[in-house]
């Protein structure tokens, strides 16, 4: 187990370096980092040259990357366009997005798996068809349309929720945004669980469990569900990273000042430090989530052992 984790951590290093280098290059090559620093006007050449020297932008890109990464490992993510430290932005943005992601993942786990089990056990019945059609609708309507509609209905017309989330973004205000963020994945989790349950339902071990006279509840939760969860856990695990990165749309609709908000500002203003810094953290989250998923396999299925 320990050796497996170490090997995986070592494998993560080239991926981490590659992904951060990639986003670094994308932001630097595709845009001019100085352009955003003079506000909406264009910089005059002398100021631009001075800024370039100041930020080390006159050096070759690989050298800039090395300097940047060196700084990152000492905990210095640079400064954002408004002079704030990127680490400061992170310390306010990440807690908000993490809360939002937690709400979304909870929706996926609780609602998604429950619906998947219910439909998987009743394949072909009206409940199954209804949920299946519903998931297709949720998947095909773009998230921002769902978000704007829910905001209009619940927030503006019926006043059940506040149409925009306050700066502190407590859990209570994040329920509807979390649902919007989770919606597409929720539909996928439902469908995955349904397929997996329906496939395993006819497995020998389920028949054995029933033949032993176990109560139906125990057969479903302990035997059927546990064996059917592996693809679902994989999906939810890889989704955590995607949710945090994809929160950009949800955060914009509900005016949540989290990671997505900062990234949106950073990208539009071509602020290399903010974009690369936040994406670096997102890549790390993604890699760690994937590792945790693989370790969870062994918990769900004792046959899987990591030497």
């Amino acid at each position, binding site marked *: 187990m320990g050796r497996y984790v170490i090997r995986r951590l070592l494998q993560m290093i080239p991926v981490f370096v*590659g992904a951060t280098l990639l986003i670094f290059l994308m932001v630097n090559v595709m845009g001019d980092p100085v352009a955003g620093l003079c506000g909406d006007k264009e910089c005059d050449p002398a100021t631009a040259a001075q800024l370039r020297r100041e930020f080390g932008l006159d050096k070759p890109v690989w050298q800039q990357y090395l300097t940047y990464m060196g700084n990152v490992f000492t905990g210095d993510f640079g400064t954002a366009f408004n002079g704030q430290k990127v680490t400061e932005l992170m310390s306010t943005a990440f807690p908000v997005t993490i809360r939002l992601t937690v709400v979304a993942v909870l929706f996926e786990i609780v609602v998604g798996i429950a619906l998947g089990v219910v439909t998987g056990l009743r394949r072909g019945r009206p409940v199954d068809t209804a949920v299946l059609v519903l998931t297709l609708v949720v998947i095909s309507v773009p998230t921002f349309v769902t978000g704007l509609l829910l905001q209009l209905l619940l927030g503006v017309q019926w006043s059940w929720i506040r149409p925009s989330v306050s700066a502190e973004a407590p859990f209570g205000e994040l329920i509807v945004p979390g649902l919007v963020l989770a919606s597409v994945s929720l539909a996928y989790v439902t469908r995955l669980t349904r397929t997996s349950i329906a496939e395993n339902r006819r497995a020998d071990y389920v028949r054995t469990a029933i033949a032993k006279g176990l109560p139906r509840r125990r057969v479903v939760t302990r035997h059927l569900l546990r064996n059917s969860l592996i693809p679902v856990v994989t999906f939810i695990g890889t989704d955590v990273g995607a949710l945090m990165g994809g929160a950009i749309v949800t955060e914009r609709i509900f005016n949540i000042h989290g990671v997505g908000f900062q990234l949106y500002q950073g*990208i539009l203003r071509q602020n290399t430090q903010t974009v690369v810094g936040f994406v670096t953290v997102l890549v790390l989250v993604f890699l760690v989530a994937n590792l945790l998923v693989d370790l969870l396999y062994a918990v769900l299925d004792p046959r899987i052992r990591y030497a």
Partner: protein
Amino acid sequence: MPELTTKTADDPVVATAVNAPAAKPEKTRSMWGDAWQDLRGNWVFVVSAVLIVLLIVMAAFPGLFTNADPNDKDLTHYLQHPNYGHFFSADWLGYDGQGRSVYARAIHGTRASLLVGAGTTLVVTLFGGLIGMLSGYFGGWLDAVLSRVTDMFFGIPFLLGAMVMLNSFTDRTIWVVIGALAFLGWTQTARVMRGSVITIKQADYVQAAKALGAGTSRILFRHVLPNAVAPVIVVATISLGVYIGAEATLSFLGLGLNGVSWGNDISDGGNQIRVAQYIMLYPSIMLSITVLAFIMLGEAVRNALDPKMR
């Protein structure tokens, strides 16, 4: 659906598989022939295929559906609400905040969305498929390198990468959007293809071809590819719909296509959602139906190809 039959038969890879049974007696149908029999009787497939053909006609000849100009601004029609009695006329679905016909724009937006979806899928499938096939078939260090590179591209959030790319272009044409979506989008195809090729390359017929002294490219393109391509086609069909949705999302974030597109119209409509919901509603419906059609088609094909689902 003549469109679809010709499409499959034109594809050299599929054609070998589809035409093969014609030479032999009827009963031994290939995987593809079998799937085709299954699909013809599947209403989900028929409905989604008919919808897609209709959308393709709409994209190619928008003039058949409306004679109004989508860019015609007439402020006397400012936020004029729909006139549901006037079927298929310019004022049927009302006018937007610049006095443009919502109906005409919904029809004319089809082309941009379908081109972005189809173009991205084509690039992603060719490139991702090639990478996946090479790393799956040759294994070893090549696989190690290609898989790690795939992981790197996969690690960057898709939407963010596309935003960074698109932000540096002021003139965002269809090609630019396709490039931005394909840049990070190919990883999924590569992974699916790699997995599929690894399973296929151990098959007896591949070993037999090798033993007979067939060249690598012949084994790859005549034996491995036709048998490994099924899951890739399924992923491609489904992701075509996903890319259309992604383009709309980018438009919503202010980084989409320039010109008439559903994404831009939904985004415009979103700004007026509290006064005139219909502006956002109709392009959203068109977009959702299109995405749905491709997802349903992909799933119907998957079920037809997967014997476990029978």
